[in-house]
C-alpha cells in the first residue's frame, strides 16, 4: 500500500475504512443470540440432538428428585422434638435426632460438663488453619502461632492442671478425635514420606532397599489390617499389664500407612523434574542436601500437590476405621447415637449429619489445594 499523501486528514482515512465494516455488520447473527438467556441455552444446552436429549434427561431427573428431597429435608422435617414419636408421625426428616444427640455425636465419651473444652480446642484449631491459609501470613510467627495453638488444644483436651480435670485419651471422641487423627497423621506422615521418597531414589543400596521394603509392605496391606495388628497383635507381644495407649497405637498405624502412600506421590513429583535441573545444581557445586532442599523439592512438591492432597483427603476419611480399636471417632459416635432404640429408624439423618461434616472439611481441602496450585503456577509464570 502506498503512503497516503501528507495533506490527507486522519478523518478521511477513517471514513474510507468504515465502509467494509458496515458490510460485515449486516452478515452478523441477530443480537438476540448473544448475551440473552435463550441464546445461551441454545448454544450450551440444545446445540445438537444428543445434547438436547441429555439436557431433557437431566432436567427430568432434577424435577423428580429435588422437590421430594426439599420436601423431606425441610418442609416436612421435624426440627425439634423431645419425643421420637413425633418424628414417626411426620413424613419428613427427623432433625430432632441431631438436636437431641448432637453433643454426643460431636464429642463422644468426653465428660458431659466439660464439653466446652473440646469445643474451644476445635474452634482454635479451625481458626489457626484459617489464618494459615492466607499467603500474606506465611511468616515465621505463624510457626509460633501453631505451637501455641496446639499446646493450648492439648491442654484443653487433657487438662490435669490449672483447675481442669484430667481426661484420659480413652474418653476423647467425636469431631476432636477425628481432627486429631487427621492432623497428626498429615503432619507426621508428610516429612516421613519425603524421606522415604528420597530414600527410594537414593543410590545407596541399603537405604533404597529399606525404603522400598517399607513402602511395599505397607502398601500391600489395607489400613484396616494395620489397625487390627495394632489393636490385637501388639498387646500380645507386650508383657502383661503393659499397654500402649490406644490413641497412640491408632496414630502410629495411620502415620505409617499414610507415609507409605504419600511417598509414592512425592516420588512421582521427583521423577517429573528434568535431568537438567539436577545437572545444573551439580554444576553449581551444591551438596546433595542443598540440591534437594533448594532446587528439587520445591519443584517436585509443587507438581505433586494434587496427588498429595488427594491422599490427605482419603486419609481424613479413613480415620473412621479406628472403630476397630474401639475409639469413638465422628462416624462411630453418629452410629452409636443410633443404638438408642426409639431413635433407631432415623439413621439417614445421623449419617447425613456426620457426612456433612466430613464433606465440609474434605471440600475445603480440595478447594484450597486448587487455590495453592494456581498461586504457585502464577509465581512460576512471573519468573
Amino acid at each position, binding site marked *: 500500500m502506498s503512503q497516503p499523501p501528507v495533506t490527507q486528514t486522519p478523518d478521511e482515512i477513517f471514513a474510507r475504512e468504515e465502509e467494509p465494516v458496515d458490510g460485515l455488520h449486516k452478515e452478523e447473527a441477530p443480537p438476540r443470540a448473544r448475551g440473552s438467556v435463550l441464546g445461551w441455552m441454545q448454544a450450551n444446552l440444545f446445540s445438537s440432538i444428543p445434547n438436547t436429549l441429555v439436557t431433557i434427561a437431566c432436567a427430568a431427573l432434577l424435577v423428580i428428585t429435588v422437590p421430594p428431597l426439599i420436601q423431606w429435608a425441610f418442609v416436612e422435617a421435624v426440627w425439634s422434638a423431645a419425643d421420637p414419636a413425633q418424628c414417626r408421625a411426620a413424613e419428613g426428616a427427623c432433625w430432632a435426632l441431631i438436636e437431641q444427640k448432637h453433643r*454426643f455425636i460431636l464429642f463422644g465419651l468426653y465428660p458431659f460438663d466439660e464439653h466446652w473444652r473440646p469445643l474451644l480446642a476445635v474452634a482454635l484449631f479451625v481458626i489457626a488453619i484459617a489464618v494459615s491459609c492466607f499467603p500474606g501470613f506465611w511468616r515465621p510467627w505463624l510457626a509460633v502461632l501453631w505451637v501455641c495453638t496446639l499446646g493450648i488444644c492439648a491442654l484443653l483436651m487433657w487438662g490435669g492442671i490449672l483447675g481442669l480435670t484430667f481426661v484420659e485419651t480413652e474418653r476423647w471422641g467425636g469431631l476432636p478425635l477425628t481432627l486429631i487423627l487427621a492432623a497428626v497423621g498429615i503432619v507426621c506422615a508428610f516429612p516421613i514420606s519425603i524421606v522415604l521418597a528420597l530414600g527410594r531414589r537414593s543410590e545407596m543400596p541399603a537405604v533404597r532397599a529399606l525404603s522400598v521394603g517399607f513402602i511395599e509392605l505397607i502398601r500391600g496391606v489395607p489400613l484396616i489390617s494395620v489397625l487390627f495388628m495394632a489393636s490385637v497383635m501388639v498387646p500380645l507381644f507386650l508383657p502383661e499389664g503393659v499397654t500402649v495407649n490406644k490413641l497412640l497405637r491408632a496414630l502410629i498405624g495411620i502415620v505409617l500407612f499414610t507415609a507409605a502412600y504419600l511417598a509414592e506421590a512425592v516420588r512421582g513429583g521427583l521423577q517429573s523434574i528434568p535431568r537438567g535441573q539436577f545437572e545444573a545444581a551439580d554444576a553449581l557445586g551444591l551438596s546433595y542436601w542443598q540440591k534437594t532442599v533448594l532446587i528439587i523439592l520445591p519443584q517436585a512438591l509443587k507438581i505433586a500437590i494434587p496427588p498429595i492432597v488427594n491422599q490427605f483427603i482419603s486419609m481424613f476419611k479413613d480415620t473412621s476405621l479406628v472403630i476397630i480399636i474401639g475409639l469413638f471417632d465422628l462416624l462411630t459416635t453418629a452410629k452409636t447415637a443410633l443404638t438408642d432404640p426409639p431413635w433407631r429408624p432415623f439413621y439417614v439423618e445421623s449419617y447425613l449429619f456426620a457426612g456433612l461434616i466430613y464433606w465440609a472439611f474434605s471440600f475445603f481441602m480440595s478447594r484450597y489445594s486448587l487455590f495453592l496450585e494456581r498461586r504457585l503456577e502464577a509465581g512460576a509464570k512471573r519468573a
Partner: protein
Amino acid sequence: MEDRLRAFVTSSIIAIALLAGSQAQAGATFDAVKARGELVCGVHTGLFGFAAPDDKGVWKGLDVDMCRAVAASVLGNAGKVRYVPLSAQARLTALQSGEIDMLARNTTWTLTRDTANGLNFTNVNYYDGQGFMVRKSVGVKGAKELSGATVCVQTGTTTELNLADYFRANKLELKPVTIEKYEEVTAAYFAGRCDAITSDVSQLAAVRANDAPTPADHVILPEIISKEPLAVVVRHGDDQWFDVVKWSIASMVEAEEKGLTSANVDAALSSPDPTVKRLLGVTPGMGAALGLDEKWAYNVIKQVGNYGESFERNVGMGSKLQLPRGLNALWTQGGLMYTAPIR
C-alpha cells in the same frame, strides 16, 4: 513378598501361642485392681441395653452393671470403672493380653473359649437364643412351617450358620436374604422383602418394640434354635479374681431372691434372716473368704441394685427394649437364674 508375609504371620501365631501359655502362670489381677483403685472392664462398642453410652456419654446397660458390681464389691465404689469398648474380634485378645481385667461384652460361653482360649467364664448374666419373627397375618405358628419362606438374616454371623443348620436338620427349604448391616436387615423385613427375620430373641423383641410400625402385627415364634448364654469372662491364672467376679455377680441374683433392693438394703441390715445377715456382712465371714471387705455385697446391692432391678432398668419392661424376663427370671419363677448358696 508373599513368602515373607507368610513367614511373618506364622512366626506371629507361634509367638501368640507362647505368650498365651506364659500368661496362664502370670496373675495377681486381683492385687493389680486393688492397687490401681480402678477396674478396667471390656464392654461392647454400643449395644443398647447391654453396654452403650447415653446422650451424656455415660455407659449404661446390663453388662455395664456387671462391671459396676465388681467395682463396688472390690473397691467399694461402683463408679471406679474404666470402660474399654471392644470390637467382637478384639475382645478376647484384650482380655488375654491383660489390657482389661474382665470382659462383660455379651460373650457367648462356649467350650473352646473356656479352654483353648485361656479364659474362664464366671456367671451368665443373660440367657439368649436365636429365634424367628413373622408377620401375624401370614398365619405361621411355628418355625417348622417356614419351609420355602424367605428369611432375612445378617451375613457373617453365627446367626446365619445356625439358620442353615436348623433348616438342614429339619429338612426345610431355605431361601435366605443375607444383608450386611443389621439396620438394613430389619428395614428389609418391614419393607416386606422377606417373610421372616431371624436373630437373637432379645434383638427381635427390641426390633418389634421400636422399629415396627405396629408391634402387635408381628409375632416371635416359640422355637429357640440356639443356646446363647452370655457370660462375664476373666482370663486363666488368677483364681481369686475369678472367685471375686463370680460371687460379686452371684450376690445380685441372691439379693433378688431374698427381696433385697437398693432401696431397702439399709433396712435389711437389721433383718433376722441368717442368710441375709451373711450376705450383707452383718454376720462376718463371707467377705474374709473372698479377701474382700465384709460390706462387699451390701455395696453391690446399694450402689448397683439386685439382678432384677438391673434387668428391668436396662432391658426389661421398664426400659426402651421391653424384653420379658423369660429364661432370665429367677429359678423360683420358671427361669434359669440360680446361684449356689452364699455361706
